[in-house]
C-alpha cells in the first residue's frame, strides 16, 4: 500500500476536455470515492492513474515515485472495471490467478492456489472456482472481478463503479463486504461512483467531480454539511436538496440568492412557521414518505412522518432551521 498523488493533471480527447487541472492525494490505507455524474471525468481519472491514458500535462506519483510515463504493468496498481472483463476462455480460478501468473511476478504455484482460495472464501465464491467465467450470475462475475484485484497487494486499488451492475439487495451486501475487506486489509482504494450511498457509506473522503474538475474533497460529513457550492450540495442527500429563491424567506444573509434546504432543514407544522405551502402529492415508501409541496410556485420535496396524516391540498407551514445559502453563481454564502 502506498500514497498516490495526482498533481495538476489534464486530459483532453480531441475537443472534449475530460479532466482539467485535477489534483488529488489518496493517503496510505485511505478509501477515497470520486462522486460525479456520467461524463464528469471520473473514469478518465482512474485510467490516467492506471496508465491506460497518458495525461496531456501534470504528474502522477505512486508511493513517492513519478510514474507518469510508466506502462500500466510497472505501476503496481489493480483495477476493477465497470464491465467485469472476465476472461471468457478461463475458469474462475484462472481468472483470479491471472495477475499472479504474470511473467514479471513468478509467484510459486502453491502460493497462487492458497491466495486465490483465500480471496475466494472472502468473497463467498469458493464453490465456483472451477466454473467457466461465463457460467456465473452478474453478482458472481462482479465478485470474481473484485477478487482478481484482491489476490494482489498493489499500491492502490482503482475501482470503476464495480457495484453498478448489481441489483439493489446485492449492492447493499457488497458495500458492507467491500468496506469490511478494505478495513481488514488496510487497502488504499480510489473508488469511482455516481451513487451517493456508496460514496457516503464506504469512503473516508469523497471527492465531488464535475466537468473534469474536482469541486470539493472532504469527509462525507464535511461534503454533506458544508458543501462549497450548490453543485456539491445537490450531489448528496435523498431526496435532493431543495434550491429555492432566497426572496421567499425572510432573514437570508446579504448576497444570498438561493436557499438550499435539505429535508432536515425543514420543519413541517400545521400552523405557524415561516412560509405556507400546499401539499401536492405524497409518496409512501413504508418507513417514510416523500412529501411534494408547492411553495409559491416552486416545488419542494421533503420527508414526512408516515403518521403525519397529510393529504393532497392540505396547507402546511414550513420553518427553516439553519439552511445553506448560495450566491448568484452558486457559491456558498455564510449564514
Amino acid at each position, binding site marked *: 500500500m502506498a500514497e498516490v498523488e495526482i498533481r495538476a493533471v489534464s486530459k483532453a480527447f480531441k475537443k472534449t476536455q475530460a479532466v482539467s487541472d485535477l489534483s488529488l492525494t489518496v493517503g496510505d490505507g485511505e478509501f477515497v470515492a470520486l462522486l460525479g455524474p456520467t461524463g464528469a471525468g471520473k473514469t478518465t481519472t482512474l485510467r490516467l492513474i*492506471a496508465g491506460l491514458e497518458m495525461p496531456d500535462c501534470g504528474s502522477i506519483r505512486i508511493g513517492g515515485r513519478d510514474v507518469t510515463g510508466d506502462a500500466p504493468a510497472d505501476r503496481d496498481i489493480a483495477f476493477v472495471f465497470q464491465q467485469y*472483463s472476465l476472461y471468457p476462455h478461463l475458469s474462475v480460478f484462472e481468472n483470479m490467478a*491471472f495477475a499472479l501468473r504474470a*511473467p514479471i*511476478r513468478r509467484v510459486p504455484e502453491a502460493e497462487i492456489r492458497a491466495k486465490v482460495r483465500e480471496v475466494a472464501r472472502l468473497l463467498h465464491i469458493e464453490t465456483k472456482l472451477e466454473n467457466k467465467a461465463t457460467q456465473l450470475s452478474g453478482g458472481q462475475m462482479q465478485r470474481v472481478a473484485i477478487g*482478481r484485484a484482491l489476490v*494482489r497487494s498493489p499500491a492502490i486499488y482503482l475501482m470503476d463503479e464495480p457495484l453498478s*451492475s448489481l441489483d439493489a439487495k446485492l449492492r447493499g451486501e457488497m458495500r458492507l463486504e467491500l468496506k469490511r475487506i478494505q478495513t481488514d486489509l488496510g487497502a488504499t482504494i480510489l473508488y469511482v461512483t455516481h451513487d451517493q450511498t456508496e460514496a457516503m457509506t464506504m469512503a473516508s473522503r469523497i471527492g465531488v467531480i464535475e466537468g473534469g474538475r474536482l469541486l470539493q474533497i472532504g469527509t462525507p460529513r464535511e461534503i454533506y454539511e458544508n458543501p462549497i457550492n450548490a453543485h456539491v450540495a445537490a450531489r448528496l442527500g435523498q431526496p435532493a436538496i431543495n434550491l429555492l429563491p432566497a426572496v421567499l424567506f425572510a432573514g437570508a444573509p446579504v448576497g444570498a440568492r438561493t436557499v438550499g434546504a435539505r429535508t432536515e432543514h425543514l420543519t413541517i407544522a400545521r400552523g405557524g412557521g415561516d412560509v405556507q405551502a400546499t401539499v401536492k402529492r405524497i409518496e409512501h415508501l413504508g418507513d417514510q414518505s416523500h412529501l411534494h409541496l408547492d411553495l409559491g410556485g416552486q416545488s419542494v420535496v421533503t420527508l414526512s412522518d408516515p403518521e403525519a396524516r397529510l393529504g393532497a391540498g392540505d396547507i402546511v407551514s414550513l420553518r427553516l432551521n439553519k439552511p445553506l445559502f448560495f450566491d448568484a453563481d452558486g457559491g456558498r454564502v455564510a449564514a
Partner: protein
Amino acid sequence: MSIANTAHSVVEPSPNTRRLAGSLVVLYAVVTMIPLVWIVLTSFKSPDDAISYPPKIVFTPSLEGFCNLFTTRSRQTPEFIRTLGPPQGLCDDIARSRNMVVAGPSNYVPRFVNSLIIAFGSTVLAVALGTLSAYGFSRFRVPLKDDLLFFILSTRMMPPIAVAIPIYLMYRTIGLSDTRLGMILLYTSVNVSLAVWLLKGFIDEIPREYEEAAMIDGYTRFQAFVKVVLPQATTGIAATAIFCLIFAWNEYAFAVLLTSGNAQTAPPFIPIIIGEGGQDWPAVAAATTLFLVPIVVFTVLLRKHLLRGITFGAVRK
C-alpha cells in the same frame, strides 16, 4: 387454456416449415454431392467401366485407378511376363493382366507432398501475418489507416492471373521459379489481404478491456495479446485459416505457370495423368479423391472452433 394451446410461437418454426426447410436442405445436399460421389465411384471403376455409355452405377470395384495413380508401368510381351516370378503385390497383378509390369512409383506422392507443404506453409504465414496486422489496425492509431486498409483490399481486386507474367519474370530473375519457397510466398501474399480483413473484424469484436486488464495485471502488450486476444480470436483464426488453405490448396493457374518439376503441386499434375490411349479417368478420379482428404480433415478438425460464438459475453456492454 385453449388460447395458449392454439397460439403458436413466433420464434419456433411450425412443423410444416421445418419439413419444407429439411427437404430443401436434403435436395441441395444431394445436388452438390453428386459430382463428389461420381468422382469417388469413378476412382474405383476399371478404365472400361469409367467411359462406358450409358454410365454404370453398378460395377465391379477395382483398385486399378489407384494403382495406376501411384505407379508407372511399361508394356511387355506375354512371353516376357511369363518369365517373371510371381507378381509383387496387387498392382503388379493388375498390370500383368493388361500385359504390363510396374516400372516404378509415379510422381503423385511428391506432388501431393509439395501441395501439403506449400498450402499449409502459406496458410500458417498468411494467418500469422494477418493476425498481427489485424491487431495493429484494430488497436493502434495507424496513420492513414483507412487508406492502408483499402490498399490491402485493393490487391484482391484484379484477378491474380493478371500479374502472372510479371511474377513469372521476377521469379525467374531471382531464382524463385519452381521452388516451394516461391510458391509459399506467392500464396501468402495473395491470402494475407483476405486474412487481414477477416481477422480485423473478429479482433474488433474483442473488447479492449481484456488487454487493459491484463496489462494492469503485469503483462506487456504482446503477452496480453498472446494470453488474452489470441484465445478469443480462435474462431476467426480458424475460419480464416480454412479460407486461406482452400485457396492455396486448389490454386491452379499460378501453379501451372510457375512450377514444372521440383515444386509442382497436385492440381496441375492431376489433369495430365495419361493412361494408354488417352486420359486415365480412374487414376484422375483417384487422385482427385485423395486430394479432397486433407481439406475435409482440416475443416472437420476446426469445426468446433467455427461453430462456437466469439465472446460469450463476460463483458457487459
